[in-house]
């Protein structure tokens, strides 16, 4: 199943999304791009029905560009999120788009923001968000380890923890892509995952004697 995760750093956003494209029990490709660049400082990451995902996200990207051209001014992350949510809400009772999204953006005054949206058209602004089965594993991990004001290195370390967790406990897994959204632009970060043993956590990986 598809995993999508994002969390706020000090003044940027990290987005982790799996890059597997498959159907039923077959993995068709492992380098699928599920993140769409809306403009210089906004990313739309989507998981769900692949046809719906491409169709909906490309439509959003093109309309955001049209807005920028018409008004000579880019959409704010908040405005963009509300626009996307509106489109999802309109289509749910007509021909629903089966996509779950996270909009990650950085604005000058507001700073980094994450908008979590699902295919029914509900939306929530959050500090960290996860879509898919991965949520069952990662939300608790993030609750424990996420702090406000993380640096990029700390953020990538946290991402490694998350990927490790999925690799250890999640039935289905594959390759991931990491995107870093800043005020100046978006960049893909390679997530070098050592194939070796995960950092052992005492009491989890190694037994700790129970004090009588």
């Amino acid at each position, binding site marked *: 199943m598809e995993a999508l995760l994002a969390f706020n750093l000090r003044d940027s956003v990290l987005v982790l999304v799996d890059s597997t494209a498959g159907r039923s029990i077959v993995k068709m490709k492992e380098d699928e791009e599920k993140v769409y660049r809306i403009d210089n400082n906004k990313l739309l990451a989507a998981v769900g029905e692949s046809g719906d995902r491409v169709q909906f996200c*490309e*439509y959003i990207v*093109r*309309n955001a*560009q*049209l807005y920028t*051209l*018409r008004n*000579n001014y880019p959409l704010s992350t908040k405005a963009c999120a509300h626009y996307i949510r509106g489109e999802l809400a309109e289509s749910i009772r007509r021909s629903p788009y089966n996509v779950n999204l996270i909009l990650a953006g950085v604005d000058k005054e507001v700073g980094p923001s994450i908008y979590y949206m699902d295919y029914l058209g509900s939306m929530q602004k959050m500090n960290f968000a996860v879509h898919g089965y991965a949520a069952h594993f990662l939300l608790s991990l993030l609750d424990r380890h996420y702090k406000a004001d993380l640096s990029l290195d700390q953020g990538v370390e946290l991402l490694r923890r998350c990927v490790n967790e999925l690799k250890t406990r999640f039935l289905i897994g594959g390759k991931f892509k990491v995107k870093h959204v800043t005020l100046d632009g978006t960049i893909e970060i390679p997530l070098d995952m050592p194939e070796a043993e995960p950092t052992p956590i005492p009491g989890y990986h190694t037994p700790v004697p129970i004090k009588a």
Partner: protein
Amino acid sequence: MAKYDRAITVFSPDGHLFQVEYALEAVRKGSTAVGVRGKDILVLAVERKSTAKLQEPRTVRKIVKLDEHIVAAFAGLTADARVLINKARIEAQSYRLTLEDPVTVEYITKYIAQVQQRYTQSGGVRPFGISTLIVGFDVDGTPRLFQTDPSGTFSEWKANATGRNSKTVREYLEKNYEDAGAEQTVQLAVKALMEVVESGTRNVEVAVMRRPKEGGLKFLSDEEVDAVIKKIEEEKAAEEAAASSSKSQK
């Protein structure tokens, strides 16, 4: 109830479409716009209409972006231009959505011309009272300049002008055009415009389009336009001084 299905643009006995010709008259009343194509650059220079004292000059824009790589200037009815430009912008994005490719300059020009033609052959509508100059670089790097007019015709140009006194400007361009580098092309555009417009940054607005990797679209600031005008005037003075000195030597 009036039915809006009767055509307004109809043929005259001698084969003219008077509404289209009247639309061209409206274009001729608009402020001048000049477009020049260079080797690696495209320049649009427009006459900045004098704004009233209390009016904000930045809201009167005659050079507009159609997409990241295409820019247009127009002459004629500003409100008509707004509608047409909006349609063109939507088409540019729609094309990108369907074909995952940016429009070529010719495609978007053809589209605009098509819209203008449709309004000369539909019921209840009048033609758009604008001519446009559309510039941009195609994906293969070729610079292109096109012009459309109210009749819906379009053609490609090396340099052209539209609006008030466009004939004078075009004649100047015909005499002096050279496929040249950036500085010379900007100078030619401004010189041509200055044939019919009072010189000074208050009256001239210049936009320069380069290939995306070389900078894309840039509006010249007041200082930059001043600098160009100053250089033109210096060269003119130097020419006149050289001409008069050679005359006196004879």
